[in-house]
């Protein structure tokens, strides 16, 4: 009896921690800009909860309990910091705030400001996603380090450095002005999508860690949508991720073998997720402002159509990619455009697009070689095709993809 009660208390703590983590960190750091101390304070509060809740029972308002405890710890942390002159304004702010706090049990949701801070132009873009995962979702540095293929110590140091910059660099917790909002929002969306992409590539569908990161990204996008409900691109991003997520089970054969999109059994796609994605895409379209993520979602929507029609409309996909390359001419979109052109207009046309990409850019870019190998092979097995396959195999990280390409190469 006691054991199961304790278990349920632990579950409550886990749930509150997950749901409230970002809200509490955002609120604690919004005025002081001290994200690091806010996180330390919240960690202390969670430890205190693990000690006292199983003994005294879960408080009526667990979130308010955590906030009060974390705020007390925050004041201690700041007080103990040696640099007295630097912490005095923080302390003053906290004192002002605690007066205000006792008056209202509800506290404002500052997560949107925290998201904008994490993707601030003054912060190294490579750190936008790790910062978000750590401060809004509470993932630990080691787990983020695995996903980003960086040593845990280095990731820890980079996160600390980024948080010092937020604290000392005058980065303000605020919603950007209307005129810079689209660009700033874009950085937030990019960072969320990067988390999803890592979760997606990472041992695609077999690795629990990878699956979690994709789920975390979807959760972040839902939080963002809740905070800025009217933005078309947020709907677009969510639609894109849900479309991809719908195909997760179909990406691997029963023996763990890699199954490319075109060979996937569409019966194994998740219809509820596809429907949800379509809903967001329609919502985005009704706003009348197109954008990168809506276009990518539209492409995935055409692919999803195969579940109903049994065929893939390559011309439609090609035209969407054409627009996408126009607004976002990255190596990734140009390579994907070439693949679509190859399907719609034949391998020669696709290869011509690939040839337009500079050779230096593609030396270590695996998808380019995979697409090139595929298109060359459709023209016949030439030494050139075998060579492209070798490059794609040599650059592949996922053993299932490597195996797939080795078999295709013949």
């Amino acid at each position, binding site marked *: 009896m006691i054991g199961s009660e304790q278990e349920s208390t632990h579950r409550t703590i886990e749930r509150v921690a997950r749901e409230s983590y970002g809200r509490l960190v955002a609120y604690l750091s919004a005025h002081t800009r001290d994200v690091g101390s806010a996180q330390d304070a919240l960690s202390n509060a969670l430890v205190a909860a693990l000690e006292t809740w199983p003994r005294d029972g879960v408080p009526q308002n667990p979130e308010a309990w955590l906030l009060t405890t974390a705020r007390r710890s925050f004041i201690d942390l700041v007080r103990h910091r040696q640099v007295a002159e630097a912490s005095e304004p923080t302390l003053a702010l906290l004192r002002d705030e605690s007066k205000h706090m006792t008056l209202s049990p509800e506290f404002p949701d500052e997560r949107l400001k925290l998201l904008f801070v994490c993707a601030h132009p003054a912060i190294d873009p490579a750190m936008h996603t790790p910062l978000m995962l750590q401060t809004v979702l509470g993932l630990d540095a080691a787990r983020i380090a695995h996903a980003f293929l960086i040593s845990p110590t280095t990731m820890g140091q980079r996160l600390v450095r980024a948080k010092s910059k937020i604290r000392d660099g005058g980065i303000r917790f605020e919603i950007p002005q209307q005129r810079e909002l689209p660009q700033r929002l874009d950085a937030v969306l990019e960072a969320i999508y990067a988390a999803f992409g890592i979760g997606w590539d990472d041992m695609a569908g077999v690795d629990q860690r990878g699956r979690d990161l994709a789920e975390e990204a979807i959760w972040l996008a839902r939080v963002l949508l809740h905070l800025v409900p009217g933005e078309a691109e947020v709907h677009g991003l969510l639609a894109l991720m849900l479309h991809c997520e719908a195909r997760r089970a179909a990406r691997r054969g029963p023996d763990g073998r890699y199954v490319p999109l075109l060979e996937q059994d569409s019966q194994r796609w998740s219809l509820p997720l596809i429907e949800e994605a379509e809903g967001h895409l329609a919502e985005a379209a009704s706003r009348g402002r197109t954008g990168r993520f809506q276009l990518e979602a539209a492409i995935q929507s055409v692919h999803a159509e195969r579940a109903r029609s049994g065929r893939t409309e390559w011309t439609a996909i090609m035209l969407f990619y054409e627009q996408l390359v126009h607004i976002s001419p990255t190596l990734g979109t140009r390579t994907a455009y070439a693949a679509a052109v190859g399907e719609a207009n034949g391998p020669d046309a696709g290869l011509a697009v690939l040839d337009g990409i500079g050779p230096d850019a593609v030396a270590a870019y695996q998808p380019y070689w995979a697409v090139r190998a595929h298109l060359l092979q459709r023209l016949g097995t030439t030494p050139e095709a075998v060579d492209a396959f*070798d490059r*794609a195999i*040599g650059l592949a990280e996922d053993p299932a993809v490597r195996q797939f390409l080795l078999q295709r190469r013949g």
Partner: protein
Amino acid sequence: MQFALLIFESPEAFAARNADENDPYLGAWRAYYKALVEADIYVGGNPLQPPETGTTVRLTDGKRRVQDGPFADTKEQLGGFTILELPSLDAALEWAARCPAASIGAVEVRPVSPEFKRRVTG
């Protein structure tokens, strides 16, 4: 900056060296080597004979100790090394993850120490 990729392989991976030309592990290595050369980062490297061909020497209290086999007796053994010229550890870890041994053994990345080499070689 130069990094060494120290390639640790399982007994199965060592055994795969005697497999025929169509062995996927061998194929993956050939492709990986090609990718390193084409990316213009390959400096050098060599595979090593299996661990049981190793002989370990040390001097304890002035006495020679010679041991059959490798220095450490673990399941995965040093099977070879590759030296790459890369701008950062981040880039080196990316190439290590692509190494065919990474998914069945392990790849340790270590910066080469040119300073110490200079002190030794003069």
